[in-house]
């Protein structure tokens, strides 16, 4: 059932929020696009399905920020409303070869119903926790981390997603390019939608994020 690739519009969420802490009192507009790579479209090459989140982050302290995002792709495609709220905190500053460690917690909420009566719609919550290690390279940064994604009900699901990325910074603009290996414990040979993943496992995802920092920053 290859047309199921359109479901990818819903998954993948955004690039990592945990690369670098926001300064206290500052904010950032954040846009994220991209997602799992699928071979399902009638093109000769793999196709990165577009996913978009539009969000905002705010620095509560010099170490901790909160963020929220709206997921317009699911709404545009299926009328499914999606949003997420989370917080990011600095665990340990980096020094030399040791990366800066940051922790992110996030709760995503989706709700919708495509029709009246059966089949029934509903709502779902998806908590996730992410740990990222980042190395600053001048104004830029490279990072790697791991995301643990849970669906607590009605059927429990748990996915670990390794990720690696880079953040390129120019003045108030941050551009992130991130690779994720989604659900690497799942064989993708026997799934209804055809993903591209290493060793026939999970789905490779590529995402691009754009952040525009707002407010007065230390120089």
């Amino acid at each position, binding site marked *: 059932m290859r*047309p199921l690739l359109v479901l990818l519009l819903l998954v993948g969420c955004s690039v990592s929020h945990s690369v670098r802490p926001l300064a206290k009192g500052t904010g950032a507009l954040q846009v994220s696009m991209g997602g799992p790579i699928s071979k399902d479209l009638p093109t000769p090459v793999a196709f990165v399905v577009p996913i978009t989140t539009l969000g905002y982050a705010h620095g509560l302290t010099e170490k901790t920020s909160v963020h929220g995002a709206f997921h317009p792709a699911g*709404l545009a495609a299926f009328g499914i409303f999606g949003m997420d709220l989370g917080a990011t905190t600095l665990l340990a500053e980096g020094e030399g070869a040791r990366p800066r460690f940051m922790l992110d917690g996030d709760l995503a909420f989706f709700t919708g119903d495509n029709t009246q009566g059966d*089949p029934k719609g*509903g709502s779902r919550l998806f908590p996730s926790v992410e740990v990222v290690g980042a190395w600053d390279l001048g104004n830029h940064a490279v990072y790697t981390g791991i995301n643990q994604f849970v669906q607590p009900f009605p059927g429990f699901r748990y996915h670990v997603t390794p990720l690696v990325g880079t953040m390129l910074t120019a003045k108030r603009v941050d551009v992130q390019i991130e690779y994720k290996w989604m659900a690497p414990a799942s064989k993708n040979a026997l799934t209804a939608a055809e993903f591209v993943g290493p060793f026939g496992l999970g789905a490779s995802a590529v995402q691009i994020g754009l952040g525009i920092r707002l407010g007065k920053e230390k120089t």
Partner: protein
Amino acid sequence: MKRLSLLASLLCFGTGCMSLDFMFLGGETVDRYELHDDVIPAELVELVAFKRADGVVLKGVWAHQPNPAPPMIYFHGNGSSIQTQWDRMGHYWSWGTHDVFIVDYAGYGASEGVTTWKGLAELDGPATVDYVVAETGYAPEEIPWVALSLGGFVSLKTNEQIAAQSILIESVFSDSDSLVDDSLKLDTPNGWFFRSDWDNVDNITRIQSPIFVIHGLADDFILPESGPRLHAAAPTDKQLWQPEGVGHSDLWEVAPEEFQRRATEWISRWAQSPPD
């Protein structure tokens, strides 16, 4: 057709009006059938047309045996037509036991109309059985059905209304919810993505005829777990076979002898005397 479905979906993107029902509704259309005679001699092939209850004209094809034989109906799968199913028809015909009849649902092949859930669930199957009964003089409960993939949905829904001698379903999806959840690796509401109820686990609870469920363990299109789910839910005499190394629709090519042996044994088990 698949490309058109995808294009339609992409055009729909942005309006929130998309559903995934289209993935069950895509038949291959042809102006006229070009059926090779590599297996079935041309003189034994008969193209026919008959009407559904709502007047839509369906096209079907008989593959007759050289000598008089009882009828068997084949409900084919999605994204295909009588023409693309002709090699498989040749396999059924080669069993030498039945005159095999295949139909194109509305909107498939050269049949008229458009494909809808209601048509597949309530109109195409009964019209086909009624036609075969009227044409052959056999009672519905004397006619075995074989079905592939979406044809399983058609056969299960039809069997709620009309008896069959027996049903053999191959590579049939258990339900649309499982298909989606398998792709997303999440447990999502079916109503997020579908407007129609594609639930064969529920449908099979209302069948009235014996059923043989076959699902290859190498099916990368429909989860092989669908077979046991359907088998467990069937209320009638039933049998399950999950051959290794068999994909979604290649059983007749991968294991033709064993398929024939098991299928003909199953059908002959329920065979009754032909009408006078």
